[in-house]
């Protein structure tokens, strides 16, 4: 950090200490809400949900070869396949949000072109494995599934529309394809890798199994024995790790898990604190009165959905922070429809990412893409709001 930056940070801290009216009960309440929401996350989501999810994300970045997925995005790739892969591959390629934009630029300039590139750009941030897991855990399985399905479906539609609109325009330099990078690491059979990921996901699902009505006999039974299931699966996983993996691979796995955790946890906790301060826990109020939220994005009107999409498109959400912010908004009276609209428009776009997209595609194409995202998110929000009501 440069000396100037340190000075600016210190100055901001001083001004905050000087001017923030800490004696005001509303401010005191909001600070308490911020800390209580943080405690809520620490107690409910970190050990059973986030930490296992980070291990899965770390495993993906180490054991899934990105190059083997990228080959479906080459200039000669079959279009149908390219769109299908683009719409779902974000779940394994985009664990770290900073990988989405370089990949998008690569697919656009060197690979399959504007359609698959924008399809990937749209779905990537929304369906990465950490985001889906935390959305389903905190905001409910229904919104989690709607988010994943919406992101996949809309990415294909947006990609195809971009392709149709700009099909006549020249692409610029001819697509050259990606450079081939030899990878000397030994590969294990696909079945073993799949089994390893399957067991990890099963552990995550088992230990987070929610309590259900005893009348749903099977679900309730699973809930009663979830620790037994989780324990047995953990033993299976341990056996796999010992038998199938080399020591240096396990070290790489732990390290990349740690890198993700180090990168994402501070941002997430800052997001939780800000969300708690502004909006409070569900059922409580932060500094922003709940009726304001309700007036702007309550219900399921066109205005509420449109406002949620536009606000989401402009705002920058660091990885996962959209979840606590949305939790706060929902608790303050936001409708389910606008919540989905914000989830669909939010992580895919932000002011900084718009600038990069414009740099890669040019102003006209970037504006078309942004408009498509906002309009489609609004429509999806209205449909989901009607179904959820």
């Amino acid at each position, binding site marked *: 950090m440069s000396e100037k930056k340190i000075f600016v940070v210190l100055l901001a801290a001083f001004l905050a200490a000087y001017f923030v009216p800490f004696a005001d009960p509303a401010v005191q309440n909001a600070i308490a809400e911020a800390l209580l929401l943080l405690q809520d996350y620490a107690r409910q989501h970190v050990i059973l949900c986030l930490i296992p999810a980070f291990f899965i994300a770390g495993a993906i970045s180490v054991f899934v070869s990105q190059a083997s997925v990228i080959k479906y995005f080459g200039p000669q790739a079959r279009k149908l396949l390219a769109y299908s892969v683009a719409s779902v591959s974000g779940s394994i390629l985009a664990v770290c949000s900073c990988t989405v*934009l*370089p990949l998008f630029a*690569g697919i656009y300039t060197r690979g399959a072109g504007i359609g698959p590139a924008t399809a990937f750009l749209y779905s990537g941030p929304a369906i990465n494995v950490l985001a889906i897991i935390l959305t389903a855990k905190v905001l409910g399985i229904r919104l989690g599934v709607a988010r994943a399905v919406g992101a996949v479906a809309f990415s294909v539609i947006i990609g195809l529309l971009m392709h149709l609109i700009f099909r006549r325009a020249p692409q610029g330099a001819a697509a*050259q*394809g990606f*450079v081939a990078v030899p990878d000397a690491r030994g590969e294990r059979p696909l079945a073993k890798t799949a089994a390893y990921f399957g067991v990890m996901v099963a552990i995550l699902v088992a230990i987070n199994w929610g309590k259900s009505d005893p009348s749903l006999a099977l679900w309730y039974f699973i809930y009663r024995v979830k620790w037994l299931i989780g324990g047995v699966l953990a033993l299976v996983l341990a056996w796999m790790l010992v038998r199938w993996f080399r020591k240096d691979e396990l070290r*790489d796995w732990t390290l990349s898990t740690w890198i993700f955790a180090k990168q994402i946890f501070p941002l997430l906790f800052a997001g939780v604190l800000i969300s708690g301060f502004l909006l409070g826990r569900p059922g409580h109020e932060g500094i922003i009165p709940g009726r304001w939220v309700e007036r702007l994005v309550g219900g399921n009107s066109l205005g509420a959905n449109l406002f949620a999409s536009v606000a989401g498109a402009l705002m920058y959400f660091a990885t996962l922070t959209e979840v606590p912010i949305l939790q706060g908004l929902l608790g303050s009276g936001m409708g389910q429809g606008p919540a989905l609209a914000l989830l669909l428009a939010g992580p895919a776009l932000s002011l900084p990412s718009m600038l*990069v997209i414009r740099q890669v595609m040019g102003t006209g194409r970037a504006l078309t893409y942004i408009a498509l995202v906002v309009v489609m998110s609004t429509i999806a929000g209205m449909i989901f709001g009607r179904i959820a009501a």
Partner: protein
Amino acid sequence: MEIRVLGPGCARCHEVEKRTLNALAQLDVAADVRKVTDFKGIMTYGIPGTPGLVINGKVKCAARIPSVEEIKRWIGEEIGKPSD
């Protein structure tokens, strides 16, 4: 020797840079190590994902974090060769 670490500046790219410096120190080799963080610059190398490692203009690895041992081997391959 010219070494370029490609990546927009997230933790994974920093790790590659750290390991590269480690490898150079272990081999006691001097090199011109720079980071390429702007998108235009990264794209000119045509890598299928970040982080990427380029030694003397040759893409040695992309879209993953290589081990220090691998980086040492690549540096060994390039020692004595002219940079582009």
